[in-house]
């Protein structure tokens, strides 16, 4: 049981190659972190796995528990169990949070089956309490007028509600103050389970202080250049990315 990315190549529509052969395996039950400098392709990797149409996959494969993901539409990937917590979550004007999440859950039910509204709200409120979200959030339009921290918390709430098999968190820590970071980390830690794989994309060690990864990978220029245990993140914090780039060049 794992999310397996093998030799993945992807370009922009104009042909510029961003992912240059990424290989990564995230088994259920593990938390992985990808670190790396700006422009290394981390965010692109998350979008390509989720199926964003601005990118063209030119080679390699992505499988979810053995099933080909690249053949699926964006929404099929989601329903198959891939969740992406966005770095910049989009606004959906006029659609309340409660209705949005409800629609997403409803989309997972067989045709003709209705979501149990009472159970839904009970579940929603429990998870909002854990993330210390005010009840007013349910009636507010999705991400409209949200602060950076509120948006990120909202992403984690959606993740908890949709109960995905594999979570990809794209720079969830960016723009968060320390209190918000702790709350978000609490949510992610509550999601850790032997049945779930988590991939965190981040610039900073800071997030990893609160969500301890099992494995750390370093990405540079469209490739994973180094993998290791949690100590790799600390080494990176100490020595910076330049060292790793040189290291990668030397070993190439």
């Amino acid at each position, binding site marked *: 049981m794992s999310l397996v990315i093998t030799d993945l190549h992807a370009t922009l529509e104009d042909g510029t190659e961003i992912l240059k052969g990424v290989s990564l395996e995230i088994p259920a039950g593990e938390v992985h972190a990808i670190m790396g400098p700006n422009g290394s392709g981390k965010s692109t990797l998350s979008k390509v796995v*989720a*199926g*964003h*149409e*601005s990118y063209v996959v030119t080679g390699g494969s992505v499988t979810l528990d053995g099933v080909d993901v690249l053949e699926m*539409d*964006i*929404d099929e*990937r*989601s*329903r198959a169990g891939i*969740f*992406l917590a*966005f770095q910049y*979550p*989009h*606004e*959906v*004007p*006029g*659609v309340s949070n409660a*209705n*949005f*999440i409800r*629609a*997403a859950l409803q*989309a*997972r039910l067989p045709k003709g089956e209705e979501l149990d509204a009472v159970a839904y709200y009970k579940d929603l409120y429990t998870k909002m309490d854990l993330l210390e979200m005010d009840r007013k959030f349910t009636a507010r*339009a999705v991400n409209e007028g949200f602060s950076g921290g509120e948006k990120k918390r909202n992403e984690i709430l*959606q993740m908890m509600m*949709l109960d995905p098999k594999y979570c990809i968190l794209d720079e969830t820590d960016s723009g968060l103050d320390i209190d918000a970071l702790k709350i978000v980390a609490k949510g992610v830690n509550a999601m850790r389970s032997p049945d779930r794989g988590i991939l965190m994309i981040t610039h900073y060690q800071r997030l990893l202080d609160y969500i301890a990864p099992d494995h750390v990978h370093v990405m540079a220029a469209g490739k994973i250049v180094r993998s290791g245990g949690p100590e790799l993140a600390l080494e990176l914090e100490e020595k910076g990315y330049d060292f790793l780039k040189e290291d990668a060049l030397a070993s190439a």
Partner: protein
Amino acid sequence: MSYDASSTLDLETREAIDIDRSKGDFSFPERHKYDAGRGLTEKTVHYISDVKDDPEWVREFRLKALKVFQDKPMPTHWATKDLDNIDFDIIRYYLSDGEKPKRSWDEVPPEVLETFERLGIPEQERAFLAGVEAQYDSEASYSNMKEELTKLGVIFVNSTEGLKEHEEIFRPWFGKVIPTGDNKFSALNSAVFSGGSFIYIPKGVKLKQPLQAYFRINSENFGQFERTLIIADEGAEVMYMEGCTAPKFETSTLHSAVVELVALKGAKIQYVTVQNWSSNVFNLVTKRGLAMEDAEVRWIDCNIGSRLTMKYPGVIMKGERARGEVISIALANTGQHQDTGAKMIHAANNTTSNVVSKSISVGEGRSTYRGQVHIPKHLKGCKNNTECDALLINSHSRTDTYPAITVKGNQHATQHEASVSQVSEDMLFYMQQRGLSEGQAMSLAVNGFINDLVREFPMEYSVELKRLIDLEMEGSVG
């Protein structure tokens, strides 16, 4: 699969867009005793007057209107050239089985009953309506109202019965809010009108439940010309709702109604429309209300479907402190043009008008907003607020706004806001990443866009509206 605007051009998509007509897309064989034949001449008008046994003043009214219709040019100098594609010579102007509207569904012919059963009308009547009139082609097949309303003196009948049985109330207002010569299509309606409702609410009577009319076209090459006149006497209140559908025929169909509302001192009329015409209907409707002192006229207008809709509901605020409101939602899919708007004519001091228009253009659908606000110099204390918001779903769709606000004098307040927004690829990606299909995502985005207006609809209608939008958006995915 990529959501690209250009991919929605193909034939398959065009056909897919019409999937949503399933509910209304059926027809029964014609069984008309009376058929005015094709084309429009004086003979046609006499035929209609003979069949309906019109009083002489109505026959004269019709003949005069025919002349006006024939003399007036098609308004293509400001409106779309598509109007030139209406072939008045092949249209049939009157079709009926010669039966009077029935008071009980049991007496309605089986195919007519089945039609309205499939559209859910008898069920809605039982659930929440005070009265229903169901029109099938030219005439009402069914018309009934709760008994207690009759006792209160409420009149809810078709236009034929109205002008004959209640001439003393009908005639003074008929054609007064919308004169025959208002436009080419009001003249056309005045010449050949048939069906529609006549409603009178006596002084101080406030209807708790809405009255509803349903206009159904069953026949090809047919023109439906209902005529509605609603009079709310002093302090009376009424909500009237209309629904419309037609099957999709090979050729185009014409629907050209005239609706006149009269709200006397302190009265309140709300007129709600949820139309879902098939994509070959030319829908050219004139709607206007007159609001006297302290009276209020509200148009809540929802336009889905049709090939071309031209409709600008208006309110003439003739008495002090009168209020006029138009709330409209228009959804134009590929092959459709929604040319809608509002006319607010302030004719007394301290009158207030509000226009909120939201249009959605999908595929190559086109929406146009035309607004007219008129406040003359000699008045004071008039207020108008106009908001038009357009939502574009892909780059091939088109939206235009033509506001015309004439305010003279300096003791008034007007406010105009317009916005255009888009359902971007990134917004759809975000929603689809949560598991919604492309159609569901678009549908949710559209529902979000009109959310604040839908609240103005009675609950039963907002549910229906949401369902129609869902179907429309599902069908528009390439």
